[in-house]
């Protein structure tokens, strides 16, 4: 994102709308104006969409590779065009965060009994990340022999064997991206402990998610495993209530 210095009147109204805090005041020709730090900007269009600029000085320039991945992983209204060139087949319109995860599990059967889905949402909530930090985690997952979910745009940029991220995008900054995979329930405790260990090696945050089929009595098999691994499960969850058809077979 850019701010036209000829149009900006220096009101600073846009600054707090940036999720990355990338907008600050700088000395212009006729006093202070707002400027976007291009290293920190994730091209989410939040500043433009807020419509707070009184002179329409904010605009999005055409984004070329590899900078365009910033918008794809940060602006929910932009589809994953670059990831598609790397083999990603987009689900459901390709907007948002690019994965169905458990949302349609009643029809897809993606997460079956005896297995758990794990998602590591790097950069979330609201801190942002470089792909270099994502690579630190993906390489650790590759060492564990974990295969990432193919129906996820981030996976397209990661080497299956080594976990290395496509070099051209390593230093691009984005709001967040999701490392997503499925493990057997018996492996889950060890995997969670390894994920916790790698969390000290990154310069950002991640949100950690678990997905699983619900037992017939309404209990959730992963709750106790997560607790044994030293994690606290949220009281608010996301629940697929089983109304999709045709229903996937167990």
């Amino acid at each position, binding site marked *: 994102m850019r701010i036209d210095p000829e149009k900006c009147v220096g009101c600073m109204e846009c600054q*707090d709308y*940036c*999720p990355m*805090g990338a907008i600050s005041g700088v000395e212009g020709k006729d006093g202070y104006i707002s400027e976007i730090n291009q290293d920190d900007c994730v091209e*989410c269009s*939040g500043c433009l*969409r*807020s419509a707070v600029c009184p002179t329409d000085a904010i605009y999005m320039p055409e984004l070329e590779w590899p900078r365009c991945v910033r918008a794809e992983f940060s602006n929910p*209204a932009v589809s994953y065009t670059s990831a598609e060139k790397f083999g990603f087949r987009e*689900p*459901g*319109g390709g*907007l*948002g*965060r690019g*994965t*169905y995860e*458990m*949302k*349609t599990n009643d029809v897809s059967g993606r*997460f079956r009994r005896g297995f758990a*889905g794990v*998602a590591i*949402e790097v950069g*979330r*909530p*609201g*801190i942002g990340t470089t792909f270099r930090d994502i690579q630190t985690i993906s390489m650790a997952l590759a060492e564990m022999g974990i295969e990432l979910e193919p129906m996820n745009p981030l996976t397209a940029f990661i080497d299956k064997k080594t976990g290395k991220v496509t070099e051209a995008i390593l230093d691009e900054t984005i709001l967040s991206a999701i490392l997503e995979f499925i493990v057997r329930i018996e492996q889950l405790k060890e995997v969670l402990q390894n994920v916790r260990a790698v*969390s000290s090696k*990154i310069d950002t*945050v*991640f*949100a*950690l*998610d*678990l*997905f*699983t*089929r*619900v037992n*017939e009595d*309404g209990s*959730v098999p992963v*709750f106790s495993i*997560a607790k044994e691994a030293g*994690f*606290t*499960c*949220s*009281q*608010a*969850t*996301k*629940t*697929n*209530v*089983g*109304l*999709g058809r*045709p229903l996937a077979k167990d």
Partner: protein
Amino acid sequence: MTHTLHRTGDTDSLQMDFVLLVLPDKDFNAEGSSEKMKQFWDLFSRHQGGIVNYGNCSSGNSHRFSIADLKETKNSILNVVFKDRGGLKACLQEIKDRDFGISIIISGLYEEVRKICDEIGLSPHTVGVSLGFHGKTEKLPDNRVLDITTMCGHHMVSHNLVGKMVKEINDKKRTCNEAATELSKQCVCGAFNPFRAEKILEKMAGLMVE
């Protein structure tokens, strides 16, 4: 897209926050679903008393579009936000009765969702649970700021904007309701809960005795 999973807050606050998501799957039942998705909007229009926000990623939220407007847009995914379990339960009951055959996902307190399912004869199929935030958590803001900003899972509501809104409330430039609406406008797909945000802002601005 796990964007409604990590909504933080205490139990009382989360009692005001349930998101219902409607999502056809491209590989299984999306073909021919556009008419059903329109019918969902008609259904939601009958439950507006309990709904505090709605929208979809490709078009926008309730601050920009009416339900009638959104009904005519591309609807590959729908979000509706309820301010209490009663509104959610009534809507979910009607969705069940209509038997659309499209996946329905509810984000909110699991115990409440489980009870609602039991009351209307549904069984939770799959659950997603948050194990919290990890890594350089010292970079995160105050918990109450997070309680607001995590209501937009795409992070379009900035931590700094919450601070600006609280300051403007205290400076009498905005009411808590106006500030909550301004925050909610930034959430493109309408998953943000301005009703709950207003209550949190009241506490942050020191307008309510706890």
